[in-house]
C-alpha cells in the first residue's frame, strides 16, 4: 500500500485541524490547568469530539462505530497533538476500544462498545507499576475464590483514571513476576469497594493517577479474554496504543518545530535575524530531516494496524515507531526551548507546554530505551 492518505482521510485531517485549532487551542489546556479542572480536560470539548463521531472511529459498525480505521484515528490524534488537546480519546478510544475489540467476548463488546462510542463510558488501562514499562513484571495479583476474583496491588501512571467509569486492569493470576504466562485482564468498575484513586498533578497538565486495589472483588464474568493467557492480546493492545500515541506525539513535534522556525525567522539579535545564522540553520535542517523520518514511521505503523499486522511483527513495528518518534519529540522540544532563548523559559510562552508533553508521552507505554531494547530482541541480536 502506498504510504499516503486517501482523499477521505485527507478531508478528515483538514476537519480535525480546523476543529482542534478553533475549539481546543493550547490556551484551553492552560485554562484547564489554572482552573484545576478535576478531569484535566474539558467535558464540553469531549462531547463535541463524540458528536463528530471520532470516539467510534475505529469501532465496528455493528457496535455503532464508523469503522474508518487507524489511519483515520491517527490523523485526528496528530492534529490534536498539534494543540496539545486534552481529552480521554487516547485512554478510552485507543486503549479501551482496542482492549474490548481484541480481548472482549461478544457480550462485553455489544454491551460496552456502543456506550464508549456515545461518550457514556470512559475507560482507563491500569498497567504500569513502576518507573519502567514492563508488563511481564506485573505483581498485582488476582486470586480466584468461587465465581469471583480478588485483586490486590498498586497501579501507577493510570491515564485519565480520575474520570474513568471502568478500568482495564492487568493482573497476575499465576506465574512469577517476569513471566508473560499467568497474566489476566479484568474490567473493574472504578467505584468498586476497595479501589482507591489518587490523582496526580502531572507536568503536562494532564491526568494520571495511582490506583490501589485492596481486596477488590470482581466477578469472573469481568475477565477480558482468557485467564492466565492475556499476554498475546495485551501485546497487540499495547502495540496499537504505542503507534497511536506516536501519532499524537508527531503532531506536537511538528507544531513545536514549526513554531520554532517561525520564531527564528523574526527574532533579531546582533543586528540581524537569528535565522540567518548557519549554526541554527543546520540544526533546524537536521531536525526537519528527523521529523520527515518520524512522519514515515507513523503512517507506516497506522497502516500496519489497518492491514491486520499483529503479534511480534506489529510489536516490532510499534517499537520502530515509538522509539523514532520519541527521540524526535524529545529533541524537537528541547531545541524549541533553546532556540526560543529566555522567552522559552517563561510560562507565558506556550512552547514550554510542548517540552512537558514530550516527556510524559515519552513514558507512555514504554520509553525509547524500552523500545530499542525490544526492537533489538525482536531482531534476534
Amino acid at each position, binding site marked *: 500500500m*502506498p*504510504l*499516503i492518505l486517501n482523499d477521505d482521510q485527507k478531508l478528515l485531517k483538514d476537519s480535525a485541524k480546523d476543529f482542534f485549532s478553533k475549539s481546543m487551542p493550547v490556551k484551553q489546556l492552560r485554562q484547564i490547568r489554572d482552573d484545576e479542572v478535576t478531569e484535566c480536560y474539558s467535558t464540553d470539548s469531549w462531547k463535541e469530539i463524540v458528536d463528530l463521531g471520532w470516539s467510534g472511529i475505529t469501532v465496528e459498525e455493528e457496535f455503532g462505530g464508523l469503522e474508518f480505521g487507524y489511519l483515520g484515528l491517527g490523523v485526528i490524534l496528530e492534529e490534536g497533538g498539534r494543540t496539545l488537546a486534552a481529552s480521554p480519546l487516547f485512554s478510552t478510544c485507543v486503549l479501551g476500544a482496542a482492549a474490548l475489540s481484541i480481548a472482549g467476548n461478544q457480550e462485553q463488546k455489544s454491551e460496552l462498545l456502543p456506550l464508549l462510542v456515545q461518550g457514556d463510558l470512559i475507560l482507563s488501562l491500569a498497567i504500569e507499576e513502576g518507573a519502567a514499562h514492563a508488563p511481564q513484571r506485573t505483581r498485582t495479583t488476582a486470586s480466584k475464590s468461587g465465581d469471583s476474583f480478588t485483586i490486590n496491588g498498586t497501579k501507577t501512571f493510570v491515564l485519565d483514571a480520575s474520570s474513568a467509569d471502568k478500568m482495564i486492569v492487568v493482573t497476575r493470576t499465576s506465574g512469577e513476576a517476569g513471566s508473560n504466562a499467568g497474566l489476566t485482564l479484568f474490567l473493574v468498575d472504578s467505584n468498586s469497594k476497595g479501589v482507591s484513586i489518587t490523582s496526580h498533578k502531572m507536568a503536562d497538565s494532564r491526568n494520571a493517577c495511582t490506583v490501589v486495589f485492596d481486596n477488590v472483588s470482581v466477578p469472573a464474568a469481568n475477565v477480558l479474554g482468557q485467564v492466565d493467557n492475556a499476554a498475546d492480546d495485551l501485546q497487540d493492545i499495547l502495540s496499537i496504543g504505542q503507534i497511536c500515541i506516536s501519532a499524537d506525539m508527531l503532531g506536537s513535534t511538528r507544531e513545536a518545530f514549526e513554531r520554532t*522556525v517561525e520564531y*527564528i*525567522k523574526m527574532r533579531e539579535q546582533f543586528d*540581524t*535575524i537569528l*535565522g*540567518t*545564522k*548557519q549554526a*541554527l*540553520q*543546520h540544526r*533546524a*535542517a*537536521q531536525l*526537519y*530531516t528527523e521529523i*520527515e*523520518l*518520524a*512522519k*514515515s*514511521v507513523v*503512517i*507506516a505503523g497506522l497502516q500496519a494496524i489497518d492491514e491486520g499486522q499483529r503479534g511480534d511483527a506489529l510489536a516490532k513495528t510499534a517499537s*520502530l515507531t515509538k*522509539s*523514532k518518534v520519541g527521540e524526535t519529540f524529545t529533541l524537537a522540544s528541547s531545541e524549541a526551548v533553546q532556540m526560543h532563548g529566555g522567552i522559552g523559559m517563561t510560562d507565558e510562552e506556550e512552547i514550554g507546554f510542548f517540552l512537558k508533553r514530550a516527556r510524559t508521552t515519552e513514558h507512555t507505554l514504554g520509553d525509547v530505551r524500552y523500545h*530499542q*531494547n525490544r*526492537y*533489538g530482541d525482536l*531482531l534476534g*541480536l
Partner: protein
Amino acid sequence: MANLETFKSEATAWLEENCPASMRKHGGGADAEFTRKKRSGDSLLWLDRCAEKGWIAPSWPTEYGGGGLSTEEHVALVGIMKKMNIPAPLGGMSLTMIGPTLLELGTEEQKKEHLPGITSGNVHWCQGYSEPNAGSDLANLQTKAEDKGDHFIINGSKIWTSGAMHADWMFCLVRTDPNVQKQKGISFVLFPMTDPGVSLSPIKLISGQSPFCQVFFDNVRAEKSNLIGKVNEGWTVGKRLLQHERSSIGGGGSSRFGISMTLNDAAKKYRGDENGKIDDPLLKLELTRQDIDTQAFALTTKRITDETMSGVTPGFATSMLKYYGSELTKDSAEMMVSIMGPQGLGRDDDRDNFSDDERGSTRAWLFTKALTIAGGCSEVQLDIISKRILELPTG
C-alpha cells in the same frame, strides 16, 4: 488494476525466459555501469535482450527506445526484478541523470540524437561539473566556452569525473559569460570524449582505486545544437540534473561493494558468543539503532516516492534524502569495519589473509566517505533544506 495484474504475469514470464541464470546469482549485476563495448557473455546477452524489449529504460517513451511503461508498471517491474534477484541491465548516470534531464528539458532533435544511444546500451556518459576550485561551491566553475557561431571552443579542466575513462560523451557546465553574477554566466553543453582536445589523468583514492579522473580540455569543440537550454541559463538545467543525481546517491547499500553479509550477520559472526548471540549490550544497541534508522529511511524514501506518484512534486525533498541516506550508508560502512576489527583493515591486494567480504568492507568504508562529499556535500544539503524548504533568511 486487472491490466496491471496481466502486466505483472507477462513481465515475470518474460524475465524467467530471458534473464540468464548467471545474472541472478550474487554479483550478477557487477557490470551494470558498463555499456556494450565493455561487456561479454551473459552480461552482454542480458543487456541486448533488455535493449530490444525497451527495458534498459522501462519508463521512457518507446520512440526513444524506452519501454513506454506507466509509473505503476515500472514500479511493479522493479519489484518483480528485486524479488527474482535480477539486476538492472544498466546503471549509472546515463539513466539516472542526463537521460531524465534531456527528457524534461531537451529539444525534440536532442532527444532523438542522444536517448537511443542510452536505451540501446551503446553510449556511456560522464558528468563535467566539479573543478579544482569549484567543488561544493560549484557555481564558481571557470572552464571557459567561447562562442564561435555554430559551436563553442572549450578550455579548462574538470575533476572527480566518475568513469571518464569509459565515457563516450560528457555533459558539462561551462562558463559563457565571466562578467555577470557567477550563476548567470553558465551554460550546459554536450560533446564527445573522442575530441582530440580531451585528455585524462586518473586520480588514485584512499581506497586504492581510481574510479575518478581529472579531465583536461584544450580547444575542445561543442556544437551549438548540443546546448541544453539557453546560453547562460545552464545553471537551472544543471541544478535540475542534480536533483536527479541526489535521488540516486542517497541509497546505495553494501551490495555494490560485493559484500554478501549484513551488518547484523557480521556482528554475530565476528562478535557473537557460542550461540551466535551478541553479548555486548553497547554493540547490540548500536546495531538496533542503525537498523531502526535504516528502516525509517527506507519508509521515508517509499513515502516520498508514493507522494510523487500521487502528483506531489518532490523538489527539494531530494536534498533531505541525499543528506540522510549518504550519512546512513557511511555510518553503516564504518560500523562494518569496526565490527570486523583488524580483519576489516587489510590492504586490498592481500587476498591471502583477508576474505572477499573483508576487503569489500574495507573498500566500502573508504569509498563511502565520498558519499557525503560528492553530489553536493552534507553541509550544502543542509543549506538547501534550510533556505529552500524551511525558508530561513540569508544574511
